[in-house]
């Protein structure tokens, strides 16, 4: 087994880009891998892979090309199905409970922790990849390791950062985007005064809503539970965060209360919104549609740091999970290992154009992050992320509280002023008690 440093990984990239374009060389690479790989697919193996519906076509094309090459090189048949998250997640859970269904499910969040016993131990694959590619980021390990075993492979994360209009922020008197919460509030206030307000989703937006609400809660030191899953939501830190939200909310563009995940994209692309939080999709759409007045005048920024003194961001994870019930565990492991080897993962990253970020440190140097400087912040998605269960454990309680929008609703109440920060924190705490049963 060769060991890669970050430099060497970078050197192989030229070859990888070529591989993505020329299927024959991809096939050669796949054959070479099949020779070397510690996991030999079982004879006559066939794999059913269920994944989420793509965000961007080029990622799906890249992934399918990789799967195809693997299939041709190893003779393993692969069938790929895709579903929206709302169908995918129950299906994954049911497959776990009845012990049949797809062999590999590419799912979201920390779902494997809801049915850990149904998961194939992927420790050997994770160790192999971690050892070869500069190690995993700690958050990727937190998401994947349970009782010393890797129950999932932290394949990629989707970054969610601040999107802003450069000219409008400059006009408001800021030469660069604020790095702390006080300056950020000042910026939002100025933008509103100038008639170019920003805004953040306050509706039940599972992506953007959760990302920004958790950031603001954590930025002031508040959190749902402590390290031992004791509910600590109703705390002075949470109230401080909500007081900040109450001030921030006054600067928002009208209508944010009804915003779901798609609204801020639309408002931003129309030029109606100067600052919001999103993945790279606004920028990608502006580039794709040739909307130069937006794409050239926008950039991305890290979330500002608050009194907590460290990055307090939330980005969504998309883990690969293999089920115990698979008849072809080695074929599954070989496939996942192959997909995350530099040549293939580089092609995947290239196809993802910044939507999806890597969890292995060696891919920091991938050109996808440097060929367009406006993608740069998305490189740090994984090292800056926390789990949604912060700082407790990833289980049913955390998943249910998260799905019930408790933090999102609490932040919305404070932002809209329908409750005082104290009331909002106390009520949300009470709702969370249902899940973290006392």
């Amino acid at each position, binding site marked *: 087994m060769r060991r890669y440093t970050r430099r060497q990984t970078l050197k192989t990239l030229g070859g990888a880009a070529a591989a993505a374009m020329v299927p024959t060389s991809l096939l050669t690479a796949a054959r070479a891998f099949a020779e070397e790989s510690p996991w030999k697919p079982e004879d006559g193996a066939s794999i059913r892979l269920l994944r989420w519906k793509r965000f961007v076509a080029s990622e799906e094309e890249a992934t399918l090309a990789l799967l195809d090459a693997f299939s041709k090189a190893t003779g393993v048949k692969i069938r790929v199905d895709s579903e929206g998250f*709302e169908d995918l*997640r*129950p299906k*994954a*859970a*049911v*497959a*776990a*409970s009845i012990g049949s269904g797809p062999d590999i499910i590419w799912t979201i969040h920390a779902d494997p922790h*809801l*049915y850990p016993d*149904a998961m194939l131990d992927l420790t050997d694959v994770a160790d192999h990849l971690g050892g070869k590619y500069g190690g995993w980021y700690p958050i990727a390990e937190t998401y994947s390791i349970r009782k010393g075993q890797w129950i999932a492979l932290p394949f990629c994360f989707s970054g969610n950062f601040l999107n802003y209009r450069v000219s409008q922020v400059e006009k408001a008197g800021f030469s660069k985007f604020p790095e702390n919460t006080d300056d950020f509030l000042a910026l939002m206030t100025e933008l509103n005064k100038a008639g170019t307000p920003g805004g953040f989703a*306050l*509706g*039940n*937006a*599972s992506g953007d809503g959760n990302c920004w609400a958790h950031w603001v809660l954590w930025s002031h030191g508040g959190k749902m539970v402590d390290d031992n899953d004791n509910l600590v939501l109703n705390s002075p830190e949470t109230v401080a965060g909500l007081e900040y939200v109450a001030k921030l909310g006054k600067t928002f*563009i*009208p*209508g*944010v*209360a*009804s*915003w*779901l995940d798609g*609204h801020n994209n*639309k*408002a931003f692309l*129309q030029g*109606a919104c100067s600052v919001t939080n999103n993945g790279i999709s606004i920028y990608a759409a502006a580039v794709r549609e040739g909307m130069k007045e937006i794409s050239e005048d926008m950039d991305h920024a890290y979330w500002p740091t608050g009194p907590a003194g460290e990055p307090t961001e939330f980005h969504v994870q998309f883990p690969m999970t293999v089920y115990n019930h698979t008849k072809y565990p080695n074929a599954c492991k070989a496939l996942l290992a192959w997909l995350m080897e530099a040549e293939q993962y580089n092609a995947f990253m290239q196809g993802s154009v910044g939507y999806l970020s890597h969890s292995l440190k060696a891919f920091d140097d991938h050109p996808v992050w440097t060929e367009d400087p406006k993608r740069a912040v998305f490189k740090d998605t994984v090292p800056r992320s926390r789990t949604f269960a912060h700082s407790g454990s990833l289980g*049913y309680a955390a*998943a*249910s509280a*998260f*799905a*019930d*929008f408790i933090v999102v*609703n609490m932040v*919305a*109440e404070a932002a*809209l002023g*329908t409750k005082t920060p104290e009331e909002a924190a106390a*009520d949300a705490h*009470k*709702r969370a008690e*249902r899940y973290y049963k006392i």
Partner: protein
Amino acid sequence: MAAVIDSADRLPLLTRFMNNRNLMGLFFMLPAAAILLVFLTYPLGLGVWLGMTDVKVGRPGVFVGMENFTWLWEDSVFRLSIFNTFLYTVVASVIKFALGLWLAIILNNNIPIKAFIRAIVLLPFIVPTVLSALAFWWIYDSQDSVISWTLIELGFIDQTIDFLGEPNNARGAVIAANIWRGIPFVAITLLAGLQTIPQSLYEAAIIDGATEWQRFRRITLPLLTPIIAVVMTFSVLFTFTDFQLIWVMTRGGPINATHLMATLSYQRGIVGGALGEGAAIAVAMIPFLLAAILFSYFGLQNRKWQRGGRDD
């Protein structure tokens, strides 16, 4: 006599069974009963059972009795969803009925290109709910609402209306969308009812000098009641269990102001994985639905034949 009975007793079992009308009747009902049992009773029973367990999606649970319901009763979001569901159902149903009846009466008159207009009226009902919900999503958009735009251009208002962001606006907006979608069903069914009323009754009333209102009040309404009862039962059931409109337009927001019991049940049971609790919310809808059915059964179906008796 004794000999006759003896010989009857000696007939083969199958022949005796075939000759017994009651047994044969039961036998012929078996397929229907089986279908009801498998597709209706079993899911309903399973739902009630799940509501009394703490089962999660993909993980078996244990029986917890009424715990889910006690929890729910103390849950402010659940209570709010009950309020929302009632408001939604009552307001939407009443308006749907009034407008639907009105539309039916208009369509019952002789108007030009009647068949075409009747077909057009059905459109909102034919369009898939998700599509119409998406259309309303745009109509109510916080920045690009066509309503806001028109009013601004006409100079009536100077700021966009926050249709789905302000709790009461949002409730009104989703109710309006539901009404738009529900009217055709009410109107077309009532129209069918109107056409069964014999014209001779109206002619007799006109000869007696009855006014238009009197004819409506004394002939149309009483003869339409059975249809009204059926239509409104269905309309209330559809409205009470509505899901798609809300899910597409607001996801229950802003801050749960438009969460109905059905959407909350889905959010917690499927998205959140708490299948037991989701089932409990769904089960909590049953008493209200039963009450609605009983009301229309006893309140509106006021003639004996409708309840299985004979008319005097």
